[in-house]
C-alpha cells in the first residue's frame, strides 16, 4: 500500500532536491519526494493530508546521548532551565535555591515509605551565584530519609545528613579533596567526583550503574525523542549485558517504539580482547530498530572536572593534568583490531592531549591496517585546535562536537578551566566545516536536554548562558547546523545511506514540525515547535505519547 503525505514544506536535506511538498511511502521506505504529480506514477495510493500544514524534515539524529535521560525522570528535576518531561509537562526551572528546596519538599510529601530515598537531578548552583547547597538545607526537608541531588554536570552531588550517615561519612576527620568540611568539621554534604559520589549515591536512590536504563526509562526516553523530533538516537556508553540486550530488543521490537536506538559497548570493566569478542557477538543481534556492534572508548575525563588530558599550557587555574581512562597500548589494541574486523569505534576525548593520543594511535593503526571509510569518531573533541582538525581530516576520522556544553558551561571554561582563547575555539564546528571534517553536534543527554534543534541553535550562535558570544569564528550556518543534526550525525554512525535525508530508498523517518526551520533561521531555530515524528511511515504525535 502506497501512502503519499502532503506537507506545507519538506526540507529533504538532499541537495539534489532540497525542497518538496509530498513524500511517497511504501513498507516503511521512501519511494520519493517531490510534487504529487511526480509521485503519482508509483501506482495506486492513499493521500494523507494530516501534515498538510506542517513542515517535514528527516527524522533528527542524536549522535551522542544516553538512555539514562529516560530513567532520570523517575527522580525530581531541579534544574535551572525549564525542561519538558517525557509526559509533556514543561517543568519550570528552579531559579533559586528556595525553589529547589520547595520542589524537593513537595516531592517528599508524596512519599509514603518513611525510609524511601529522595533523589533529585540537574542542580546547577552556578546560576545561583555559586551559592552552595549544604546538608542543613536538605535536612529541613527530611532528617529521616536520605536525599541526594545530582548536579547537571554529573560530577557533583549534594546530600543530606541521613545520606552521609548511611554511607558512613557523617563523622569528623575526613581528609579528601572531594569532601569539603564545614566549621563543625563534618562534611557539608557536597560530594565532588565519581569516587566520592558512588558510595553515597546508592543510598539516595540512584542506580548502581548510572548510565544504565530500565524498561520504563527506555519508554520515557522514546517519548522524549518524539518531542524533540528525533528518530535515531545513540546510547553512547552501554555495558550491554545479555539481559539489557534482551530488554532493548523487546522494547524496540514492540511496534510502538518511536526511535531507532544505537547502543555502543563501552570499554570499561572488560579486557580489550573480551571487548572485541563481545561486540562481535552483539552485532548479529541487531534489528532495524536496534543497532549493535559498535565500541565506545573513554580516553580521558571531563574539562570542568579537571580530569581531561590537556596539552600545554594545561589548565588555566593551574590544576594538574587529568587522567587517562585507558592505557595507550589498550587503545592501540582496540583500534587496530576493530579496524581489521570492521568494527566501528567512537572515542570520547575531551582534552586536546586525549585527542592527539587518538590521532597518533590511529595513524599507527592505519599503517598496519590500511582502511577506508572507517568513520571512527571523536566524541566531544572539545579542545581540538586547527592543526588537529587537519590530522583528523587526513585520517578519515569524524567528530561529534558538544555544542550544548559550549552554551551551558562556556563561561566556566572562559573564566576557570582553559581561559579565553581556548574557550573561544572549543567545539570548533566552523573549523570542521571549513576543513571538510564530517561532523555532528550533540546534547549528551541527560547532561543537557535532548533537542537537536536547540543544539543547532547553540552551534550557530555560540552564546553562553550568561549571554557572551564565545568564538565568532567557529559559528556555523543554518544549512550546516541542519545537516549536522541529520546527515552529519547519521554519517558518524554509518547510517547516512539509510536515514538523515528524505530521498528515494531511505527509511520513512521524519521530524514533523509546526514551524519552518528555514523561516525560524539562525536566531530562532531553538523555538521551532515539534509536532512529533514519523518512524518507518508510522506517525507519533508528541501530544499523545
Amino acid at each position, binding site marked *: 500500500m502506497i501512502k503519499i503525505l502532503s506537507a506545507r514544506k519538506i526540507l529533504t536535506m538532499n541537495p539534489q532536491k532540497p525542497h518538496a511538498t509530498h513524500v511517497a511511502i511504501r513498507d516503511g521506505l521512501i519511494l520519493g519526494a517531490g510534487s504529487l504529480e511526480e509521485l503519482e506514477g508509483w501506482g495506486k495510493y492513499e493521500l494523507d493530508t494530516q501534515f498538510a500544514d506542517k513542515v517535514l524534515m528527516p527524522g533528527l539524529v542524536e549522535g551522542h546521548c544516553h538512555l539514562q535521560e529516560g530513567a532520570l525522570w523517575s527522580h525530581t528535576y531541579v534544574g535551572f532551565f525549564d525542561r519538558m518531561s517525557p509526559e509533556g509537562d514543561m517543568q519550570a526551572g528552579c531559579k533559586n535555591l528556595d525553589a529547589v528546596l520547595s520542589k524537593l519538599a513537595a516531592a517528599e510529601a508524596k512519599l509514603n515509605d518513611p525510609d524511601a530515598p529522595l533523589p533529585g537531578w540537574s542542580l546547577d548552583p552556578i546560576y545561583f551565584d555559586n551559592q552552595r547547597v549544604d546538608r542543613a538545607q536538605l535536612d529541613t526537608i527530611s532528617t529521616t530519609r536520605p536525599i541526594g541531588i545530582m548536579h547537571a554536570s554529573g560530577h557533583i552531588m549534594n546530600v543530606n545528613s541521613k545520606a552521609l550517615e548511611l554511607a*558512613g561519612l557523617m563523622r569528623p576527620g*575526613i581528609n*579528601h*579533596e*572531594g569532601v569539603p568540611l564545614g566549621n563543625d568539621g563534618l562534611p557539608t554534604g557536597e560530594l565532588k567526583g565519581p569516587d*566520592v559520589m558512588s558510595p553515597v549515591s546508592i543510598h539516595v536512590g540512584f542506580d548502581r550503574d548510572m548510565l544504565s536504563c530500565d524498561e520504563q526509562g527506555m519508554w520515557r526516553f522514546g517519548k522524549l525523542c518524539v518531542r524533540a523530533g528525533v528518530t535515531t538516537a545513540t546510547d553512547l556508553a552501554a555495558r550491554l549485558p545479555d539481559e539489557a540486550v534482551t530488554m532493548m530488543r523487546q522494547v524496540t521490537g514492540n511496534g510502538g517504539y518511536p526511535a531507532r536506538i544505537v547502543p555502543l559497548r563501552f570499554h570499561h570493566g*572488560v579486557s580489550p580482547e573480551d571487548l572485541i569478542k563481545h561486540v562481535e557477538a552483539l552485532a548479529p543481534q541487531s534489528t532495524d530498530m536496534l543497532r549493535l556492534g559498535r565500541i565506545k572508548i573513554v580516553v580521558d575525563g571531563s574539562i570542568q572536572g579537571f580530569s581531561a588530558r590537556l596539552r600545554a599550557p594545561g589548565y588555566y587555574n593551574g590544576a594538574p593534568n587529568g*587522567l*587517562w581512562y585507558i*592505557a595507550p597500548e589498550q587503545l592501540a589494541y582496540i583500534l587496530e583490531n576493530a579496524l581489521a574486523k570492521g568494527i566501528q569505534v567512537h572515542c570520547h576525548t575531551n582534552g586536546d592531549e586525549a585527542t592527539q593520543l587518538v590521532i597518533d594511535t590511529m595513524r599507527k593503526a592505519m599503517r598496519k591496517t590500511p582502511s577506508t571509510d572507517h568513520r571512527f569518531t571523536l566524541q566531544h573533541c572539545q579542545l581540538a585546535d586547527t592543526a588537529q582538525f587537519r590530522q583528523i581530516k587526513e585520517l578519515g576520522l569524524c567528530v561529534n562536537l558538544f555544542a550544548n556544553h559550549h552554551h551551558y558551561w562556556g563561561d566556566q571554561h572562559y573564566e576557570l578551566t582553559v581561559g579565553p582563547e581556548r574557550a573561544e575555539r572549543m567545539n570548533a564546528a566552523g573549523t570542521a566545516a571549513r576543513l571538510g571534517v564530517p561532523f555532528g553536534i550533540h546534547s549528551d543527554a541527560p547532561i543537557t536536554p535532548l533537542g537537536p534543534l536547540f543544539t543547532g541553535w547553540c552551534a550557530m550562535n555560540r552564546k553562553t548562558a550568561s549571554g557572551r558570544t564565545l568564538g565568532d569564528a567557529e559559528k556555523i550556518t543554518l544549512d550546516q547546523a541542519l545537516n549536522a543534526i541529520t546527515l552529519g550525525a547519521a554519517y558518524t554512525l554509518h547510517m547516512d545511506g539509510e536515514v538523515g535525508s528524505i530521498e528515494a530508498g531511505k527509511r520513512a523517518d521524519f521530524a514533523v514540525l509546526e514551524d519552518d526551520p528555514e523561516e525560524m533561521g539562525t536566531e530562532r531555530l531553538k523555538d521551532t515547535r515539534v509536532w512529533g515524528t514519523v518512524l518507518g511511515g508510522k506517525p507519533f504525535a508528541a501530544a499523545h505519547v
Partner: protein
Amino acid sequence: MSDTLPMTIIAGYLGAGKTTLINQILRNANGQRLAVLVNEFGALPIDADLIEAQDDDLIALAGGCVCCSYGDDLMLALTKMREMDPKPDHVILEASGVALPGKIAASVSLFGNDIQVLGIVVLADAECLPDHLADTYLADTVIRQLEAADLVVLTKTDLATEPQMQNSRDAIDRYAPKATRIDNGTDALHQVLSADASAHDLILGNDAPHHIAMTTRTVAPTEPVNANELAQSLADNDAVVRAKGHLMAAPDNTMVTLQLVGKRYALTPADASATPGIVIIEKNAHTASHRT
C-alpha cells in the same frame, strides 16, 4: 583485632608484572582469606583447579579467597566487600595500568576505619621504565604512580640492560625517595602479604598475619553427614583456620556449601550438581600454639 579491613594497593603501568604478582599471591595465600580486586578478569589466568565458583564479577577460589572485578566502580565494589561475610583477612587491589594509587588511597580513606590502606606497592618494569618516562603521554602518570609508592618493586630485571637498570633505579630514587625499593619479585610477595611495605599506619599490630606454615587437606565424605556437627567440630579445632566446600547434608540429602573462618561458619544451600568435598586449611602442629 578491630573490624578494619586491611588493604594493599598494587599499581604500576601495563606489563610491569601486576598480574604475575597477583597470581603468586593467590597461590601463596597460606590460609589467609584474601579478596583480590582486579579491574577486569581478562588478563588474570587463574588456574582452573583453584576456581570453585564464578559469576560475572566474582570468582570464588579454593581456600576461601575471592577475586572480584570492579570495572569502572571501585568504590561500589569496596562497599560490597565491606559487607562480605565472612570478612576477608586482607584486600589486595590491582589498580589499572593508568590509575593513580595515591588517588585510590585517598578515596579508600572515605571508608574510615572500615578499610585501611596498609601500603601502596608500585611495580616498575626495569626494561620499560626509562621509555615510559620519556613518553610524553605517559611520563606524568608513571611519575605520579611512583610518588605514591611505599614499596617499589623493580621487575623483569633479568631482561634489562645495565644502563636500563641504572636509569630505572635513578628514577625511583628521584620520584620515590622514601619508598623501599626491591629489585625483583621474590621478596615482593612476602612483603605484600605481610604488609611490611607500609609507610601508612600499621593497624594490624601484633595480630598481623604471620607467616605460619599451613597445610591443606581435602575431605570428601561419601555418605550424607550432619553438616552442622561437622562444621562445629572444625570450628572447635584450633588448628583449622579455613574450610570451604560442599557437603551432602543428612537427613534430607541436600547439597550445602560450608564457609568457615576461625570459629565462625555458615552453611548455605548449594547447587545439587556440586561435587562434595571440603578443603580444610590448618596450621601445622608446631605453629598452632602461637596463634591461640
